[in-house]
């Protein structure tokens, strides 16, 4: 198994303490900023700022490496593929057969790659510093129906459990001499039935039990539910919110009111 089932790790940094709603806002606004910026240089500056945040979030090297591996691969892919499909502009740098690789297209590719890098890294920082529970709490606070929030929280919660069960099912079938990657395509897909059926049965049984558990804990008995942990905006959250708004607002003003090329 390679991936991390839960990206969040418990730390005590200002990014961890920040109200999750402010973090969601920050991701949204800084993403908009990445859209507004068109000059490669400024985008690189923005990416550096985001990477600085990643460092400040003190995410473990393992997780940061895991996350950046995908981001960097994706960025390289965009840079390489963009000029192949965008052939406008001059001068032509070189031609491969009928393909003309133009200089502006190469720059546009790099710009888009950095932009995507900004988006992805922002999301990773959010996931590194916000527990799934807080994220759901923030969404509910922002107006998501509690039922949907709970459903979301439960599905997050069960991802690792499901992963383990599927591993166990695979082991149980391998102990019956099942070889998943052997034989014809027909044979292989038949083999996967032996994993799929127990998995689905397990999922249905779990859902059934879960429904009973929720009911036995009076879920939905009262329409007006209260919360054990309320998330509340503190002074520092308002400061952070103001900073985030300014980070978007100032460059936007410069560009659209004063016509500065950024």
């Amino acid at each position, binding site marked *: 198994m390679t991936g991390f089932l839960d990206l969040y790790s418990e730390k005590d940094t200002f990014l961890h303490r920040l109200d999750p709603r402010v973090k969601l806002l920050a991701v949204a606004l800084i993403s908009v900023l990445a859209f507004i910026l068109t000059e490669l240089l400024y985008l690189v500056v923005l990416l550096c700022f985001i990477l600085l945040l990643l460092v400040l979030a003190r995410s473990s090297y393992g997780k940061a490496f895991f996350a950046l591996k995908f981001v960097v691969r994706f960025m390289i892919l965009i840079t390489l593929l963009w000029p192949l499909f965008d052939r406008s502009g001059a001068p032509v740098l070189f031609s491969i057969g009928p393909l003309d690789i133009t200089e502006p297209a190469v720059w546009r590719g790099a710009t888009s790659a950095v932009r995507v890098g900004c988006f992805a890294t922002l999301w990773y920082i959010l996931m590194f510093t916000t527990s799934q529970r807080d994220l759901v709490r923030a969404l509910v606070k922002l107006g998501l129906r509690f039922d949907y929030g709970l459903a979301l929280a439960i599905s997050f919660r069960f991802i690792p459990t499901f992963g383990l*069960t599927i591993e*166990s099912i695979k*082991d*149980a079938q391998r*102990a019956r*001499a099942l*070889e998943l990657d052997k034989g014809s395509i027909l044979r292989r897909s038949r083999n996967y039935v032996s994993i799929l059926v*127990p998995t689905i*049965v397990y999922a249905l049984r779990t859902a059934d039990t879960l429904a009973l558990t929720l009911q036995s804990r009076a879920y939905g008995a009262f329409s007006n539910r209260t919360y054990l942990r309320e998330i509340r905006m503190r002074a520092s959250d308002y400061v952070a919110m103001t900073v985030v708004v300014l980070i978007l607002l100032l460059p936007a003003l410069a560009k659209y009111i004063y016509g500065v090329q950024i």
Partner: protein
Amino acid sequence: MIPRPDADSEDRVIFLRDAKFTYESGVEALKGVTLVIDKGEYLAVVGGNGSGKTTLAKHLNGLLRPTGGQVLVMGVQASTRTVAELARVVGYVFQNPDHQLFCRTVHDEVSFGPANIGLDGPEVKRRADRAIAVMNLSDIRDRPPLSLTLGLRRRVSIASVIAMEPQVLVLDEPTTGLDAREADELMAIIRRLNDEGTTIVLITHEMKLVAEHANRVVVMMDGKVVLDSDTRGAFSDLGLLRRSKLLPPPVTQLAHRLSQIGVSKDILTPQELVFELTRGDDQ
């Protein structure tokens, strides 16, 4: 002294030599286990939760590969064989039968394993029929296994493993969730398999099962074997068992309490205690 792998006897089916295993998460589950299992033994591997007994069992059919030391199955390095190849020799019944049942009928379910090891049609049928007969499932051979009771589902899952006719049968907590009668029936069948020559490795923390069925007990604690003896010997050291988070069956505990009036401490069954006490009266 650690026996050498080449000093191999005919009867030795499984040989772990200083086997170590560390999970990816860094948890050291086996810290050097040396264990010899001979043909026809009825061995119980006991220990508290997290003592490494299931990790140990998963090495016997190659589901896990030792990160240090060796595992030999029938004198061959297990690491050179696939799980499918080892499954012919070592059958492993998982604790939860629902992790493996998927077919439309009990008969199909039991045929899955033999078909996987590449046997031809008539042989698959012969083995499936035999396994169904052994596990007393003939009446329900055409029923869908997923709709049976837990006791029957567990019997189907065992049938589906013994249909491959392995020489060693590993059972992980086979009586969990069964009532007393279902458990007794199941253990009687397993005893019969052992009498017919199948080596049984029972993983459990149900000490009553161990006392009544196993011939040899391996106690595990913190990834190490802390005791390897015959069943009687295993129950004489209460302190060691307690440290291993185990409790002997009530009748053995009672015998320990009665030892001051001359009852021997290695009582395993109520019958033995009665015999011991009435013999005392005669004197």
